[in-house]
């Protein structure tokens, strides 16, 4: 297959998607970043240092764990890529360490970041603390309330957190505000973009920094079980954990690839974040990709119980993988995700992030058919992209937890 079936061309296009639709004022910085990233990735000194910090500081490779009790209940073998065990509790640390190292290499002294759930903000604040960089994190005002604990973590790490009130006051507006900062500060500031979206080179660069997830998982699967999985699954908001998992498996034609988007209250209600499933091609935040938009191209507010998936755009490589049919993107509702969160907690003693619970719920949905096709050894590798500690407030509300005795069983509402 040709080089360009996957990956971007030199202008950052993945087939029809991607590119760079940005103000001229930022083009020089994006060009500078592209050159710095490409040189760094070709420099063994950089890549060795990146591997070292991931291993010694972030705690990778993360485990590949066979969830036997869950598998038994589901009727297919479920393998979990335990990115929740990484330092800071999610896959995001891989991306920020890579970008922060690049920032140092470029001689910049300040980083800015946007965050939805707060995981990328915490990871950015962590990397900034480690590398001695000033750090400002933009976060939708709605999200600062949903994720107050992560706000405190960022502040403790020395970052400045700026709540964003404009627009829908969620992730997309935090990105807008970070871009506004960047256009005025670009000479000394790097934008640590939190997902594999945005203008070239971010989708490709973030994928490069996150692809260790899939590279490790593929090798671990072969080493531990002697086979590749029949299917792999990840949640998709912007899509960094998903592209990080998928990349290593793109050429494995026998491995089915599934991305699970946030279906919110149900795609049919209009209150969701199923960008690929229900959006249409457009331009948002510098890239051509699927976008939730109205007839006039105005962005429609997305809805999800998961702040990290609550984004009306998606990384352009996912749009491309969907269009060429290499990956399948399906919605998972809030209720399905929360059920999966409870199920994993009780069967395996692992509380997943509500984002990751979408991937798990999706895997459960495809398990039956896969087991029917492949038998009981059918194997689904799920990226458990983050841990659920940050989502306890959501869980308390959803399950009615934290009450008095007799009311604390946490049955589904």
């Amino acid at each position, binding site marked *: 297959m040709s080089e360009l079936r996957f990956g971007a061309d030199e202008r950052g296009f993945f087939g029809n998607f991607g590119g760079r639709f940005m103000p001229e004022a930022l083009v*020089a910085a994006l060009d500078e970043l592209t050159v710095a990233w490409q040189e760094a990735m070709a420099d063994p000194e950089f890549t060795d240092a990146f591997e070292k910090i991931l291993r010694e500081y972030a705690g990778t490779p993360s485990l590949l764990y066979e969830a036997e009790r869950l598998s038994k209940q589901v009727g297919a073998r479920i393998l979990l890529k335990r990115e929740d065990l990484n330092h800071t509790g999610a896959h995001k640390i891989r991306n920020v360490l890579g970008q922060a190292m690049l920032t140092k290499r470029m001689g910049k002294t300040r980083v800015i970041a946007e965050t939805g759930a707060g995981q990328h903000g915490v990871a950015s604040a962590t990397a900034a603390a480690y590398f001695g960089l000033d750090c400002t994190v933009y976060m939708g005002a709605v999200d600062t309330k949903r994720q107050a604990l992560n706000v405190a973590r960022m502040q403790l790490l020395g970052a400045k957190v700026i709540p964003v009130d404009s627009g829908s006051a969620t992730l997309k507006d935090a990105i807008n505000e970070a871009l506004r900062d960047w256009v005025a500060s670009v000479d000394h500031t790097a934008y640590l973009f939190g997902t594999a979206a945005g203008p070239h080179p971010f989708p490709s660069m973030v994928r490069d920094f996150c692809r260790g997830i899939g590279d490790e998982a593929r090798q671990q699967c072969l080493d531990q079980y002697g086979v590749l999985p029949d299917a792999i699954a990840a949640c998709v908001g912007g899509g960094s954990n998903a592209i990080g998992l998928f990349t290593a498996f793109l050429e494995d034609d026998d491995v089915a690839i599934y991305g699970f988007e946030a279906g919110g209250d149900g795609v049919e209600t209009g209150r969701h974040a199923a960008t690929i499933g229900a959006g249409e091609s457009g331009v*948002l935040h510098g890239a051509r990709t699927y976008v939730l938009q109205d007839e006039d191209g105005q962005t429609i507010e997305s809805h999800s119980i998961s702040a990290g998936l609550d984004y009306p755009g998606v990384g352009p490589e996912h749009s491309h993988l969907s269009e060429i049919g290499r990956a399948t993107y399906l919605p998972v509702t809030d209720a399905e995700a929360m059920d999966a969160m409870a199920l994993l907690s009780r069967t395996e003693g692992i509380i997943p992030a509500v984002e990751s619970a979408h991937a798990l719920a999706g895997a459960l949905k495809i398990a039956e058919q896969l087991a029917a096709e492949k038998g009981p050894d059918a194997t689904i590798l799920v990226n458990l992209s983050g841990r659920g500690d940050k989502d306890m407030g959501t869980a308390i509300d959803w399950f009615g937890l934290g009450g008095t005795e007799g009311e604390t069983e946490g049955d589904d509402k």
Partner: protein
Amino acid sequence: MSAKSAFEKARSENRAALVGYLPAGFPDVDGAIEAIRTMVEAGVDVVEIGLPYSDPVMDGPTIQAAAQQALDGGVRTRDVLRTVEAVAATGVPTLVMTYWNPVERYGVEKFAADLASAGGAGLITPDLTPDSGEEWIAAADRHDLDKVFLVAPSSTDERIAMTTAASRGFVYATAVMGVTGARSTTSDLAGPLVARTKSTTDLPVGVGLGVSNGDQAAEVASYADGVIVGSAFVRTLLDAGADRKAGLAALAALTRDLADGVRRG
């Protein structure tokens, strides 16, 4: 009618052109038309009509607030085109300033055709550079429309040359690194940027850097072909609130001050 004609007229009068911006639909569609006509009567030479967009990454709080008010009021792309038609009827070159997605969504060819038939002069595209704008460039050329692209202090000489080569009407120099908004101090980046831009083209160069009064306009007019004012007009209407008559009077007064400024430069 290309915006270039207004710059040439100003040049023949030995002065800079005054380029005025307001978003369509602010405070409502008819209110915006009335406001822009007021600006034209008081001395604006070229009009930029903003197409309100949900994610305006290059705009500061003032224009964001106006665009949000317009969107909350239900403004549609077709209302923007109706605004263009009403303003262009005054005889002043009328451009639309828009983020890219609404045009892509409307259909690039259809937008160009409808803009031309409304009498619009062309488009200013703050998040579309010529190297990403092949489709727009082709449609604009088919419909005889201006393509106003932006240059910035961070632009390399090579990119400035590429940008001016693709532009028609005028070249928009964003002379500060930052979002839109009125500024009390002028930029020392503006003069050098204009000089670098002019070394690549005979097109007029307009400068936008947060000008809000006649003195600032005069200073910019000393080195640029056009003085672009946006946030100060929007701010004037926002400050007037529900009192539209007072708002229009203040808008006319500000326009006269700025129009005087571009004649002193």
